[in-house]
């Protein structure tokens, strides 16, 4: 599985990006081109969020089948959307695509993450307990969200249903601009600290022995993973276990656990997957399905293949 030249991934990536931007009548059509550019921007941000948050989360938990989704961030998002509809009715349904809706949802998910994090700090929970807490709270919120959806009219329900899958069509330029700065900063910061992340891979004891303040790092990186996951979910909707797939593919292709390779590769792979799915949605399925459904399908097949083959896990 290991590639000799991992940067070769840029080739299909650029090709697909060019195809996505320029196919059909977009050439010379400023409006169409700018619309596609915004969508490409959304994909880029979402790809960075999904890949980086998952890789960091897996490094901290020492577990390769987890992604920040287990912490219930996506469930918090779903509950937020359902509540918005319950309170605001049809207006609440229109909201989510707008920049205001993005900020509202982001604030809501971050608030939940912050509460969890405070719990981690105060109760000095072990990481496993913290994960379990997130998992349970996520399930509770899912149930509440389902309950809240019963109060929606069939039209509102259909829109809510649509929001449970990721899609790039509802991202507005304004929301994109709000998201760009924090994501770029987080990505830069993580890349600068790649050596520390490598040391954290060795586990708590060995990292401490190498002069890393493990608990402080753990809090810091978990918070960052939460912020990235929250931005991604609020921007394009839940991505479920796509992060697991992207991270594991990156480890396999890189043939190395070092973050200097896995983080850029994971981001590139996520973007590739998004581009592929979006292109399929636009040109093959003609908008009859969504990116989220396609991505989940692809990831599901890959994970099953991985489990059945029982190797290639790098």
């Amino acid at each position, binding site marked *: 599985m290991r590639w000799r030249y991992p940067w070769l991934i840029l080739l299909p990536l650029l090709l697909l990006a060019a195809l996505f931007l320029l196919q059909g009548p977009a050439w010379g059509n400023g409006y169409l081109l700018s619309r596609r550019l915004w969508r490409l921007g959304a994909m880029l941000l979402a790809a960075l969020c999904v890949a980086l948050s998952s890789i960091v989360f897996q490094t901290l938990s020492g577990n390769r089948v987890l992604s920040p989704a287990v912490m219930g961030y996506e469930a918090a998002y779903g509950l937020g959307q359902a509540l918005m509809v319950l309170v605001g009715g049809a207006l609440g349904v229109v909201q989510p695509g707008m920049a205001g809706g993005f900020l509202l949802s982001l604030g809501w998910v971050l608030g939940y993450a912050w509460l969890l994090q405070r719990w981690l700090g105060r109760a000095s929970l072990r990481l496993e307990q913290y994960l379990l807490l997130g998992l349970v709270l996520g399930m509770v919120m899912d149930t509440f969200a389902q309950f809240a959806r019963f109060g929606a009219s069939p039209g509102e329900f259909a829109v809510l249903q649509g929001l449970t899958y990721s899609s790039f069509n509802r991202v507005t330029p304004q929301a994109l601009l709000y998201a760009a700065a924090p994501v770029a900063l987080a990505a830069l910061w993580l890349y600068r600290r790649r050596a520390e992340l490598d040391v954290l*891979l060795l586990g708590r004891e060995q990292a401490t*022995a190498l002069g890393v303040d493990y608990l402080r790092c753990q809090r810091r990186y978990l918070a960052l993973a939460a912020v990235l996951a929250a931005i991604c979910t609020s921007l394009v909707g839940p991505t479920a276990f796509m992060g697991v797939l992207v991270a594991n593919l990156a480890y396999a292709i890189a043939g190395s656990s*070092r973050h200097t390779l896995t983080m850029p590769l994971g981001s590139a792979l996520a973007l590739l997957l998004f581009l592929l799915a979006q292109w399929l949605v636009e040109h093959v399925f003609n908008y009859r399905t969504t990116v989220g459904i396609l991505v989940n399908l692809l990831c599901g097949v890959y994970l099953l293949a991985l489990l059945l083959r029982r190797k290639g896990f790098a």
Partner: protein
Amino acid sequence: MISVHALSHHYVGRTVLSGIDTVFPTGKFSALIGANGAGKSTLLMLMARQLQPAAGELRLAGMPLSQLTVRQFAQQVATLRQFPDFRLRLTLEELVAFGRYPHSQGRLGPADKAAVDDAIDYLGLASLRGRYVDELSGGQRQLAFLAMTIAQQTPLLLLDEPLNNLDIRHAIDIMRALRRLCDERGCTVIMVIHDINLAANYADHIVAMKHGRVYASGEVAEVMQSALLGEVFGLDFEVQRQHGGYVCNYFTYR
């Protein structure tokens, strides 16, 4: 080098160390021996700052450990715990380079690279440097981890049972390397070890523990007494001196 003062520790309701007072001599190879549950590993982990003591104090060259930052500490003390199963994709060279992290924070300079090369050569691992650590044999992997610890170039090394599951060849390789670290580089080595014969033949100083207390400590010759060791382990011990070395007979069925 490192001194222990009235140190106590307990895990939920159970006392594992009580009132430990001892000094580990600078530039010497010390062995911590005793039965399972005697508190050896706990003492070592307290010295390595992996645990916080319930009472008492530890001093490194006269300075209380609590006054050092995590990074300062890692520049002076290298710790190697029992080896976990290793599932990371890293080459031996990359693993050894981790030993430089306390000094370089990940940006390897010429001095760091020299230290990595030196540690690899020191243990004779040059032929394996490009190999993946998860594909090495158990013995080679333990040597690789030891090389990482050596690359840290600290005056004090703490090792928790580094010989577990090793064949006699690799065990001797590790003991010899540590002996040379003391003799040639003036390092202080403290090691938890179960093989009493290896401890007696390679160490300078032995601390024997029993029920969370130091039962005896001193030069090898002072501690290697049949009656004393018999008490420590609750076995019939017969310490023999042969060809300038020690052989303990505790396994003959009587």
